[in-house]
């Protein structure tokens, strides 16, 4: 237990020190991207990992929130109003998603969320009077919480880090809670859960709302980071990318989506500077993960670690037995 606390403390210090041990604004920005994509992946993981509901339309939710923030700011409102409107609309959009897609599970759920995501993409692309079409919406400036400007990369990084830690803590509390246990129950045995007196649909609906809230939070960070929102941010590739973050890191684990976000963002923004066909590399990495650790990087590494540990123990046991 104490070893775990020490590990947490070291990680936290390392995260806080990022702007000092990483030189260059570019890499600090990459770190910010990893963090808000990690929040996005944590949100999707609530559904994919803990509810057993795979969504391929989450980029649409990100889009609605980001456009809402952009549009409200463009209309002359302040940052607080813009963020609140964006979060409320993002969660409301998720509620509509949930009502429509929770009629099904499995493939049906995937297809309905996919269709909804595509509809939102189509609207973003074609409803030019509101979204600006292909030109998107430009934002000007970032909010200044408590009078601190977030314009510098490291200031924005710290703001993102705080939000990320709060989101991570919220998810950690949720998965240990009775409602979290009930959600995992509906993933494994929905019929039994119903027979035990649980309202399966309502439990899934609340999980959807939590997932939507995390997605909306990451969308606000995303749009303030890029200062720009266009239909590209919410196409099917974007939905698939965040799903790959969850699956490659390990669905249904707390740290998996974070590791997945790290992997995808690093390959996309850092490795792509050296390798032109970085998409191919990302594909190859995913194929390797699927072959070697089908359960994802975090649970897979833990399995291999335990295996190696046991082997080492057995070897030392034999060595002691010999003389």
């Amino acid at each position, binding site marked *: 237990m104490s070893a775990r606390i020490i590990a947490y403390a070291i990680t936290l210090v390392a995260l806080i020190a990022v702007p000092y041990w990483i030189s260059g604004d570019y890499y600090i920005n990459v770190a910010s991207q990893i963090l808000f994509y990690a929040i996005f992946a944590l949100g999707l993981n609530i559904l994919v990992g803990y509810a057993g509901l795979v969504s391929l339309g989450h980029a649409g939710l990100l889009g609605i929130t980001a456009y809402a923030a952009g549009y409200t700011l463009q209309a002359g409102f302040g940052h607080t109003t813009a963020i609140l409107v964006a979060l409320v609309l993002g969660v409301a959009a998720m509620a509509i998603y949930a009502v429509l897609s929770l009629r099904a599970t499995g493939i049906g759920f995937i297809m309905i969320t996919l269709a909804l995501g595509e509809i939102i993409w189509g609207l973003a692309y074609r409803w030019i009077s509101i979204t600006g079409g292909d030109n998107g919406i430009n934002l000007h400036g970032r909010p200044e919480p408590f009078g601190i400007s977030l314009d510098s990369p490291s200031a924005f990084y710290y703001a993102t880090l705080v939000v990320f830690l709060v989101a991570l803590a919220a998810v950690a*509390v*949720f998965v*240990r*809670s*009775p*409602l*979290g*246990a*009930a959600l*995992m*129950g509906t993933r*494994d*045995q929905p*019929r*039994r*859960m*119903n*027979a*035990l*007196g*649980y*309202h*399966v649909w309502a439990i899934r609906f*609340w999980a959807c709302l*939590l997932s939507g809230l995390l997605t909306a939070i990451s969308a606000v960070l995303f749009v303030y980071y890029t200062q720009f929102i266009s239909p590209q941010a919410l196409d099917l590739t974007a939905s698939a990318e965040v799903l790959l973050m969850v699956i490659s890191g390990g669905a249904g684990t707390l740290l998996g989506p974070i590791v997945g976000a790290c992997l995808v963002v690093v390959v996309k923004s850092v490795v792509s500077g050296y390798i032109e066909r970085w998409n191919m590399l990302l594909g190859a990495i995913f194929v390797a993960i699927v072959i070697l650790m089908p359960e994802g990087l975090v649970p897979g590494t833990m399995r291999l670690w335990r295996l190696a540990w046991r082997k080492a123990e057995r070897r030392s046991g034999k060595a002691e037995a010999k003389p």
Partner: protein
Amino acid sequence: MSALTVTDLCKSFGGLHVTTDVNLDVGPGERRLIIGPNGAGKTTLFNLITGELTPDSGSIALFGHDITRVPSRRRPHLGMARTYQIITLFPHDTILHNVTLALLGLSPMRWNPLIDMKRQSHIVEHARAALDRVGLAHIAERPLSQTSYGERRRVEIAMALAQNPKLLLLDEPFAGLSIDERRDVHQLLLSIPRDVTMVMIEHNMDVALEFAERITLLHFGEVIVEGTRAEVVADPRTREVYLGH
């Protein structure tokens, strides 16, 4: 007042009549056995009683309270619990967690997203007590995937009993058990107090007959014979339908 009253219950899947005008009247504390050949509609009848299937016509009452239109998820809250013929448990979790989920199902705490479930000592202790009742307390922390088939059957029963039901529906609780395991489950069922009314579907006649006070024989979705143990066993229609000669 009857514990369970089923009146003129009908259900068909397309042209297949799986339940035809079934009437059942189970008194409080009674041990009722439902028998019938494969495909007689026994499990379908259970699914209608628990609300997993909606009847085409007819009504179901629990202690005089009409529950025909009550959604299946509300029925455990009214005192109805069931076990499944095909074991339906949570394979990734421990035995204790399985029973805790059963208890949580009836507690308003199931909606709480903020507290740590493992620290809710009263609910965990309650689950341990339920496991003690079925003789599994010593392996409470074992993952379900590492338990034997007989132990899983007992977890099924422990989960149903943990909910403190007034009506317990047992769907083939002896299916697939060894002789020793069968005896354990039999002892367990005998130890359940009389304030629990039990309806059991079972094929295994030697244990089931000993358990039952009254027997209902179903065939092609219809009640063919109903009566005391002796009456049903002696009835020539029982031999014809169930024993085949």
